[in-house]
């Protein structure tokens, strides 16, 4: 029998760039080439490795390899008290420590039945949304790095990130490892000056976004390299547990801020942007649109921020021993659904502590998204998924 006929003729050399998905042909009877991309590859956003099999430049097989940053975070947490793991959660997703802290605090509060005062809920939303802005702005910058623009968009994003991170430093004492949330509230009450500065920053942020978008969204390289690249079907994405902007780019309306309405998100008026094609371009646009929604949430939060305590007076800091039981707390981190599963046996240490990392699970369909694309596209697709290796390998 003759070898399987190609379903689509290969595009002639020099043809205008049409659909980027190519079928693999053995027209040249070429050998397949196995390349190990990473773990020290600059485009893998950390120590992540992809074992790719190439036909020419086209990917026919891709296997992600994990574990280079594995330090068994879960075991460390099971050997310490509940509160002592709070600083460790900063190191999971080190770009978004505020929302990672919140996810852990949320799970422990659910486990212990701990209430949170109103002002702390608002502060949490403010900090989580600022984190989302930091994460998305940087991600867009890194995505353009992967597309080959050498650092200019990233430095624009870093300029804005620096302002927000300065706010985090003024509030918590640390730029990235904030360790700010506590079980039953927050650690430090921001001063009126801090709130005014943050509010001013948020009010000015749309101007930066307009500038950023003017520079990037219509860019020809972006359009040519991302539209139709790395498509993800909604049904496959749901089945594979993909969450966050990657899922919503495929058109699935599932945002935990709306679905679970954890914290006080039900009090806020915002929309959930959805994509149509599930391609890399949609994933890029999700980030831009979510930043605009975050600005809306932040403005409402600054307007409505109540006065009052930031810690529940009944919250136990020392000798914290939740009753035996288990709880799974999850929230919408900038990367997707970040969950903490905790099992208590009544001792000061969790019997079982599990992190549900969105970065890891969003990589489940990486191979399907990259098949038929070139290596350069795989780099961009990986960039658009938005992973942080501290969270993938834990």
């Amino acid at each position, binding site marked *: 029998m003759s070898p399987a006929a190609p379903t689509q003729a290969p595009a002639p050399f020099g043809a205008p760039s049409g659909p980027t998905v190519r079928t693999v042909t053995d027209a040249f009877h070429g050998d397949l080439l196995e390349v190990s991309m990473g773990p020290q590859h600059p485009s893998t956003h950390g120590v992540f490795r992809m074992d790719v099999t190439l036909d020419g430049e086209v990917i026919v097989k891709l296997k992600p390899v*994990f*574990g280079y940053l*594995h330090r*068994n975070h*879960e*075991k460390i947490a099971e050997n310490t008290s509940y509160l002592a793991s709070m600083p460790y959660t900063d190191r999971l997703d080190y770009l978004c420590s505020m929302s990672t802290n919140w996810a852990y605090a949320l799970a422990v509060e*659910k*486990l*212990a*039945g701990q209430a949170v005062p109103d002002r702390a809920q608002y502060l949490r939303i403010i900090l989580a949304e600022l984190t989302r802005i930091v994460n998305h702005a940087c991600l867009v910058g890194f995505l353009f790095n992967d597309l080959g623009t050498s650092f200019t968009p990233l430095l624009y994003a870093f300029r804005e990130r620096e302002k927000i991170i300065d706010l985090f430093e003024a509030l918590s004492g640390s730029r990235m490892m904030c360790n700010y949330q506590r079980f039953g509230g927050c650690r430090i009450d921001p001063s009126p000056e801090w709130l005014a500065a943050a509010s001013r920053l948020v009010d000015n942020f749309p101007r930066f976004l307009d500038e950023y978008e003017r520079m990037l969204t219509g860019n020809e390289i972006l359009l040519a390299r991302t539209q139709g690249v790395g498509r993800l079907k909604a049904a*496959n994405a*749901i*089945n*594979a*547990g*993909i969450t966050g902007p990657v899922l919503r780019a495929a058109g*699935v309306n*599932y945002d935990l801020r709306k*679905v679970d309405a954890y914290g006080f998100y039900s009090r806020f008026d915002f929309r959930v942007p959805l994509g149509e094609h599930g391609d890399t371009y949609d994933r890029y646009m999700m980030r831009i649109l979510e930043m605009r929604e975050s600005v809306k949430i932040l403005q409402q939060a600054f307007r409505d921020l109540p006065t009052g305590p930031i810690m529940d007076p009944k919250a136990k800091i020392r000798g914290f021993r*939740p*009753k*035996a*039981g*288990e*709880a*799974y707390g*999850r929230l919408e981190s900038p990367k997707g*659904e970040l*969950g903490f*599963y905790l*099992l*208590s046996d009544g001792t000061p240490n969790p*019997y*079982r502590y*599990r992190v*549900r990392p969105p970065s*890891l*699970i969003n*990589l*489940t*369909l990486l191979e399907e998204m990259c098949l038929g694309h070139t290596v350069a596209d795989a780099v961009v697709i990986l960039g658009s998924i938005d992973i942080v290796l501290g969270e993938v*390998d*834990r």
Partner: protein
Amino acid sequence: MESLEQIRDRLLARFPGATITLVPNPGPAAEHTISLDNAHAFEIARFLRDDPALQLDYCSNVTGIDWPEKEIVETKKVSVADPAGGPAKVVEEKTKRIEPGRLEAVYHLYSMALRHGPVIIRLRTGNRSDQVTVPSLTPVWRSCDFQEREIFDLFGIVFEGHPNLRRLLMWGDFKDHPMRKDYVEPDDYEWEPTPHAEVLERAQAHYPSVTPGVSAPAQVEAKP
């Protein structure tokens, strides 16, 4: 969403031979779970995913739990008659029983279509040494793929029917399962399976006048 009792009753009606028990959660979260037997778990999982009233199309979280063998001491008060004829004495009698160890896999299921959940199911192994197999639910929910591999890696549960059951985080030659409660950390973290002797031998043959592993200035100083 219907209650867990209703789900259990429907499952029992649909799968007559299955053993399905509710595991209560005593904590304030009150997220109770359903424990399934391994023979029917795969079919039940598919039913949970495809049932129009539940449509649990999204498996969010999969995790393992290690329950080592535990010695449970139960004290019982027994009244013992005094042989001398006095009033009966109340004596505490201690009985020890050993609860066998097991491993557990816990799945958190949600419905994206109907926006409800979680329904939490548990699968249990027979023991911690030789009966560590549970059915893999990866064919039902693709999101279990990496998470089941991680549990296989860190807890040592073997997921039967998983398409690619390899270690996820530890390297391939690693022997133990670090998340088990009785895991003993190695003395030397830096040990690498590198054939040092062979490499050194080759280096010596390659450059006989230099001792491998000794810094160059030290060698120069040592020479007369």
